[in-house]
């Protein structure tokens, strides 16, 4: 079959046998550091809500809650596109997928910039939200699947490295976006459209760097270390299952529940962290210290992605998730106690550990999928599993916000408004623990459903 731009084909990206595999993670990081920008979108909320009014919102300006739909659309498009394009990715290889992701993600910025410049909300939603979201989804799964094939001996560490980049992307994008808006601001414009165009160009360059440096291992390639320990690893699958069969197994849905509850619990707290610490410790924690707390949680999220996924290579994926859910439930339940005792260190310490496990849950799941279903279509299976993220992205913040509002409406002081939410989160993690225990008691998916090459 002939395809457009044949130099993007998988066959053109196969590495020679002596290729140093440590040249592949930077390609993965280039993609994830770029698309991780999505989590810094909130820096545009206020400027976008004042496009007409300048210093304050004017009649006809977009409300912040309406702008929030742009981010939500992007996350839903991420999950859907990862699910839809996963098998295509496995067929065409990572280079074509990464170039597609780069064009969609950067294209989202360019279309969004037109929407901002002409003040047409639907263009911003279609551009950054839908088109950019497709770029997020394809970009998220492409490098993960490739790294799993390069690091069969350390799959957790390899995927943790890439997915850590997604956490780090917001850390670059947030200050960069603020600096660019300051640079482009004028009496006539807040500089958001110009910032969008600049970010689009920068991310296009960075992602194309990743696309053209990525390589896939040759069919007969084996890392020396993995060859040495082959057979001794209890998690190494002997064959692979295709994505269509994988989603019919109970193992897939146990993993879906585990990812969903882990993300629901973390994402709700992450979105409300600043308000939560200020309201729990009124008069002691101000706006600036709260911003520092949010930064600390971002670092915990980032480092947890690498730490826990690397540790899972040693202690096993099941044990790692058992730790997440059992220790996580205890820590969530301890947060109201920290509020009662007015203990800032206990409150901060518990949430820092929890956020390392939130990141760790994201980063370890591809390696878990690889253990259960093999590597042949792990990108496609991972893509389908990411629908759990889309669901959690909506449920998590809604749960935290609505329970808080309900408590305040029923007379609870703001300092105690989050107590019930924390118990709900602990309960969710207990469900995750049950799913992990059930998964461990199931027979191996590949053995049960028949091996496929």
């Amino acid at each position, binding site marked *: 079959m002939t395809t457009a731009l044949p130099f993007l084909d998988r066959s053109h990206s196969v590495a020679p046998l*002596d290729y140093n595999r440590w040249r592949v993670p930077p390609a993965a*990081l280039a993609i994830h*550091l770029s698309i991780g920008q999505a989590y810094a979108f909130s820096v545009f909320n206020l400027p976008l809500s004042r496009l007409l009014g300048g210093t304050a919102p004017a009649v006809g300006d977009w409300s912040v809650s309406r702008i929030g739909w742009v981010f939500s659309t992007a996350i839903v498009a991420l999950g859907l596109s990862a699910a839809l394009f996963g098998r295509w990715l496995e067929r065409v290889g990572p280079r074509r997928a990464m170039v597609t992701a780069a064009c969609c993600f950067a294209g989202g910025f360019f279309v969004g910039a037109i929407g901002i410049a002409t003040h047409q909300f639907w263009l911003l939603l279609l551009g950054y939200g839908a088109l950019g979201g497709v770029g997020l989804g394809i970009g998220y799964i492409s490098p993960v699947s490739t790294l799993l094939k390069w690091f069969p001996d350390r799959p957790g560490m390899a995927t943790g490295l890439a997915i850590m980049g997604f956490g780090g992307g917001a850390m670059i994008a947030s*200050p960069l976006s603020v600096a660019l808006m300051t640079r482009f601001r004028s009496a006539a414009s807040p500089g958001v459209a110009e910032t969008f165009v600049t970010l689009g160009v920068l991310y296009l360059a960075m992602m194309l760097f990743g696309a053209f440096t990525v390589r896939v291992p040759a069919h007969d390639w*084996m890392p020396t270390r993995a060859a040495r320990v082959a057979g001794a690893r209890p998690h190494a699958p002997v064959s692979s299952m295709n994505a269509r069969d994988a989603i019919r197994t109970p193992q897939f849905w146990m993993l879906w529940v585990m990812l969903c509850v882990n993300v629901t619990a973390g994402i709700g707290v992450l979105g409300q962290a600043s308000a939560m610490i200020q309201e729990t410790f009124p008069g002691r924690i101000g706006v600036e*210290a709260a911003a520092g707390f949010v930064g*600390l949680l971002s670092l915990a999220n980032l480092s947890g992605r690498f730490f826990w996924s690397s540790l899972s290579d040693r202690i096993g994926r099941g044990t790692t998730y058992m730790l997440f859910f059992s220790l996580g439930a205890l820590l969530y339940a301890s947060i109201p106690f920290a509020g009662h005792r007015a203990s800032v260190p206990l409150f901060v310490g518990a949430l820092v550990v929890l956020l390392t496990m939130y990141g760790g849950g994201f980063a370890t799941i591809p390696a878990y999928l690889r253990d259960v279903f093999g590597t042949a279509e792990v990108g496609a299976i991972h893509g389908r599993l990411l629908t759990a993220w889309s669901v959690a992205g909506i449920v998590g913040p809604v749960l935290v916000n609505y329970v808080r509002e309900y408590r305040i409406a029923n007379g609870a002081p703001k300092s105690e408004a989050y107590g019930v939410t924390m118990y709900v989160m602990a309960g969710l993690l207990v469900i995750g623990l049950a799913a992990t225990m059930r998964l461990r008691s199931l027979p191996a998916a590949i053995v049960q459903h028949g091996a496929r090459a």
Partner: protein
Amino acid sequence: MNNDHRNQWVPLIGAWLVVLVPAIWGIAQVIKKSAALFR
């Protein structure tokens, strides 16, 4: 030899620098901001 990595150091280090420099800059910004919590 399966893993002969000779002559690959320049592209290896170059590729890591491309991603590590912006990443370290971003992390430094967050650490600066986080310091406010401990003041």
